[in-house]
């Protein structure tokens, strides 16, 4: 009898956990993610596995970086675009001649003072041939956008 009384009391008397601080916790997480991440700027239509390298630097000032993606189209796009490596600017495939236009529009969107600090990040798949990369570099020279960055992963390779 005593036992049952105890257990009954215990169950009934269990206080509900207060959830009043739950919003605060979630907001804290939210702010953490807002500060540490950046908006995803494009949907990729090309497969890009960047090569590995050891002598790498972090890309600073992401707002001043324009991206050029080069690689074979993703599976879903292969039916219409084939498997040969292609260039992607913003949200669509592009040809080499469109790069100058792309750079010009990127420069227009920024403050005039910031233009000399703008960097073009070449995100190319490791299987891509140098021909297409050279064409892109040549176009960048024509557009007078000389700071480039070959996007790489950190890591060693096997010789």
């Amino acid at each position, binding site marked *: 009898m005593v036992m049952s009384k105890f257990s009954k009391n215990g169950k009934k008397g269990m206080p509900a956990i207060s959830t009043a601080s739950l919003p605060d916790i979630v907001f804290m997480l939210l702010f953490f993610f807002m500060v540490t991440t950046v908006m995803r700027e494009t949907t990729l239509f090309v497969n890009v596995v960047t090569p590995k*390298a050891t002598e790498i630097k972090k890309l600073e000032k*992401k707002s001043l970086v324009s991206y050029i993606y080069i690689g074979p189209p993703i599976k879903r796009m292969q039916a219409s675009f084939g498997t040969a490596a292609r260039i992607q600017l913003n949200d669509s495939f592009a040809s080499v001649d469109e790069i100058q236009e792309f750079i010009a529009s990127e420069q227009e969107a920024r403050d005039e003072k910031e233009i000399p600090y703008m960097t073009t*990040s070449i995100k190319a798949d490791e299987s891509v041939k140098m021909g297409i990369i050279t064409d892109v570099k040549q176009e960048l020279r024509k557009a*007078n956008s000389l700071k*480039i960055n070959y996007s790489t992963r950190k890591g060693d390779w096997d010789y």
Partner: protein
Amino acid sequence: MASKRRGLPEINAGSMADIAFLLLIFFLVTTTMDQDTGISRKLPPMPEEEQEKPPEIKAKNIYVVLINSKNELLVEGEWTQISELKDGAKKFINNNGVDPSSSDSPQKAIISLQNDRGTKYMTYIQVQNELAAAYNELRNEAALSKFGERYADLNKKEKKEIRKLYPQKISEAEPKNIGGNE
């Protein structure tokens, strides 16, 4: 006045957590966290119409690195593995006139890189990486002996001094298309 205030009903904050969760999930989906890293290079400006003749450079001050369409390396006329490239480049840059057929000084040493249109991008990056590693190691050694610190830990002025000792001169020639690739 006071009694009126007291009479106001409290706003129910029970759904606050749901709203915050919604926002959190939105940001989790639309943002990325990956740090962008890479090898930074500066392209040469387009040649102008009437260009002055570039100053002559002695052939011994140029370290020629060629990559063919089969991703093989020819360094100074010799077939080389990528793994040997860094030490070779370091030796060439830091020759200081010891070997009469190699560079006069690190300031005069130039690495000339030429690839084929059929070269794989990965190989090209590996070569760029090895050459950068050669310079970084030399700068590190100079920084350690001069300031007793690693190059990365030096302040701006000291870094500039080391960079002056070992300027990174990597020249890229227009690629050839010997392999017959598109």
